């Protein structure tokens, strides 16, 4: 009788990759009609566990019970048939197909499509009615925004008769308002008897929407409590294994001289659409300027222009150069990123694996990347010992683990990779630091370190431009916050007056001068 109320139960679930346990004797009970949160750092085994539950990567040993019945999933096909649906962090959608085609993919209902499409249309309209999930059925997925794409994913799962819905980091791509809408939907699903498993690293969301929460660390469950009985601080502590300072202590900024002036920057993409549409920005020494906005609104292009990766089509860019301590026009600077180093500008790119490092190269070689002529020898021959020494130095400063300079970069965790990139750029002693998504894919422990270091740099008088999709990060680090929508700044607030709700409204383009409590 007890078991009847369990939507999902795991008993001693184990999964190994090589000799490493990704999940070690995991026990987990998820109650029917509840929202159950699963938190943990990167590599804590959350995703592996979800893949085990869905049969994507079948478990090695242990038992999975769905609605009290033992199951043995060999593939996702089995779990779908059993009423388990998963919404992946990276959407499993085919962009060139229509919404309808995406929904029926895999359960087309016959050799020919017409009948299936017709049946699906009716079925989906019923679901849309029941849950208020409005989507344009005949549009191509590539034409839809991420928020709608996520709805398509949820619809897809529900259409296949999912009764237990797993969402992996569903809020990573959403604005605060869209997050609220998603939570409303999840509560609605719960009230209609569905069970929701929410995998996330955002503790605030766990506290806001879940009934119970399970914390994972290094492949095992370390905490399992009712949400009302815990706090974000306790969850963070059990995730990392030590007390974590979630709110960074701020000191008042002492703004120095003007270092960078951008005026009316415009950048057009290949099809002539303005990605930056007249952006002006002053950056002063000793301040952190945060750029808030839904990703894809021009923040990336702004970073690229400032870092010299892209030349602006219009506008001007002036910088107080470090060497001569005088103003230099760098609007059309040739040899972009390299010449920026001499001006005292360093850049931590948003997509570190693509632009920041060469993943297959050793850590010590990545530490020299972009600074080859400075570290370890002259232009032609290198001094391997000095290179190793410098890398060890950096690893020591930033507490990179493992401290192995010879290891290829992709064998480090996201947090440690980011520390290596940050260490490299900051060691070049820049006067202006451009930072994109400094904590994307980085665990809480490392986030704390990175935030502290950025604050310390600001206090030393470095001008920092921070682009992040994490509003919390923007709010806790920035002295000034600029909100970007569709390639222009739509608002500026000082951090003391900013609130998440106000910023969220500005990001969505609803309030112009919002962001004030």
């Amino acid at each position, binding site marked *: 009788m007890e078991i009847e109320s369990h939507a999902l139960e795991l008993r001693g679930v184990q999964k190994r*990759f090589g000799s490493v346990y*990704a999940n070690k004797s995991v026990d987990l009970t998820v109650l029917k009609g509840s929202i159950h949160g699963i938190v943990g750092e990167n590599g804590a085994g959350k*995703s*592996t566990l979800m*893949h085990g539950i869905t049969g*994507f*990567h079948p478990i090695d040993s242990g038992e999975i019970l769905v609605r009290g019945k033992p199951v043995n999933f060999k*593939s*996702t*096909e*089995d*779990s*779908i048939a059993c009423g388990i649906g*998963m919404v*992946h962090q*990276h959407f*499993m*959608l*085919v*962009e*060139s*197909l229509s919404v309808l*085609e*995406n929904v*029926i*993919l*895999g*359960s*087309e209902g*016959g*050799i*020919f*499509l*017409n009948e*299936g499409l017709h049946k699906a249309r009716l079925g989906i309209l019923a679901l849309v009615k029941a849950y208020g999930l409005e989507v344009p059925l005949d549009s191509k997925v590539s034409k839809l925004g991420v928020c709608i794409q996520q709805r398509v994913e949820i619809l*897809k799962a529900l259409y296949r008769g999912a009764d237990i819905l797993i969402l992996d980091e569903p809020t990573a791509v959403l604005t605060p308002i869209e997050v609220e809408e998603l939570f409303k939907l999840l509560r609605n699903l719960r009230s209609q008897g569905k069970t929701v498993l929410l995998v996330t690293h955002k503790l605030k969301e766990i506290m806001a929407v879940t009934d119970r929460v399970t914390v994972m660390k290094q492949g095992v469950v370390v905490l399992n409590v009712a949400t009302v009985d815990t706090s974000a601080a306790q969850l963070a502590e059990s995730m990392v294994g030590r007390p974590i300072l979630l709110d960074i202590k701020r000191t008042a900024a002492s703004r120095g001289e003007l270092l960078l002036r951008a005026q009316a920057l415009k950048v057009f993409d290949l099809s002539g659409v303005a990605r930056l549409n007249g952006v002006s920005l002053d950056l002063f020494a000793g301040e952190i300027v945060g750029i808030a906005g839904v990703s894809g609104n021009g923040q990336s292009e702004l970073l690229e222009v400032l870092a010299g990766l892209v030349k602006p089509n219009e506008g001007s860019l002036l910088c107080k150069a470090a060497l001569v301590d005088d103003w230099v026009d760098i609007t059309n600077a040739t040899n972009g990123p390299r010449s920026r180093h001499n001006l005292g500008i360093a850049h931590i790119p948003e997509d570190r694996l693509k632009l920041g490092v060469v993943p297959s190269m050793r850590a010590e070689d990545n530490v020299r990347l972009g600074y080859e002529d400075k570290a370890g020898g002259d232009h032609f021959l290198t001094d391997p010992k000095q290179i190793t020494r410098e890398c060890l130095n950096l690893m020591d400063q930033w507490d990179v683990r493992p401290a192995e300079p010879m290891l290829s970069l992709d064998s480090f965790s996201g947090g440690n990779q980011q520390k290596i990139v940050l260490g490299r750029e900051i060691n070049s002693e820049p006067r202006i630091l451009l930072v994109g998504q400094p904590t994307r894919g980085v665990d809480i422990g490392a986030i704390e370190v990175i935030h502290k270091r950025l604050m310390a740099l600001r206090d030393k008088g470095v001008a920092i431009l921070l682009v992040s999709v994490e509003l919390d990060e923007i709010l806790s680090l920035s002295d000034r916050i600029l909100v970007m929508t569709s390639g222009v700044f739509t608002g500026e607030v000082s951090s003391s007056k900013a609130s998440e709700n106000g910023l969220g409204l500005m990001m969505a383009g609803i309030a112009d001068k919002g962001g004030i409590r």
Partner: protein
Amino acid sequence: MTLSYYTVIILLLAGTIRVATPLILSALAGLFSERSGVVALGLEGMMLGAAFGSAAASAIYGSAWLGLLVGVSVSVLIAAVLSFACVFKKGNQVVAAIALNITISGLAPTLALAWFNQGNQTPGLTNSAQRFLEITLPWAKVSRTHPFPGLIYSELISGHSVIVYLAALLVPLSAFILYKTRFGLRVRAVGENPHALDSAGISVNKIRTQAVLISGVLSGVAGTYLATAAGAGFIPDMTAGKGYLALAALIFGNWKPYRALGACLLFAFTDTVATRLQGVPLPLIGIIPVQFIIALPYLMTVILLAGFVARPEPPKAIGVPYEKEN
């Protein structure tokens, strides 16, 4: 007697259809393979293998139909090897396909020499049962006596081998399969985002293998056409880059069946016109060197593919072996 412009055009178009047939079959073969995310560089090898297989079987057993069966079997066998290497073993698709092409181009003449001892060729297919001959449709002879519109019927519509009609039929059929069936939806999906298919509980390897095997069947028909309908036996390297040309047509047709058909017809038309122009003096220019004329279709292909006409949108996952992420 000089031919009227009308007759010349009709004959040019009839020639275009004959030249286009192996290209169309091969392009359709490439369509299934590439839309499923497997690079179709193996078309050339599959076609050549089929040409040899069909010519050899037809020479030995005296039946063109048996030749078709063996030709298709050989091509499917090559496709199976390709899908084993590229789909299951996650090998580099370009390297595997090129390696197979080179192997076939050496193996076929070697076997021909060993089995038939007539140079590197198969014996000529002289018996009418050994080849797919041109079929004269009813009333074709009568209609020829009224050149307009009779010639359109007697030369364009009638007078082709059965494989030509088959190719014409296969274009709409392939379009139907690709856009209106469950299998087609999965093929289109797996070439764009295999993860989506996998998470929906469908085997990526299975769909890709099926698509590559279909590609083998179609290439087999194309190769058989070359050896037993257009030609009369196997000669070394008789495909002469037609597989690559078909791939070019597929790209030019933006991986869509009817557009690829159009591209094949365009390539074939240039080829036919070029052949026709050999030795014919043109006003102002005079006689164009043969070498230039032969190069013309290829030159046009390069210019077309360089993006002067359209920006290609290949399937997103093409050439990338599928591996589950952790």
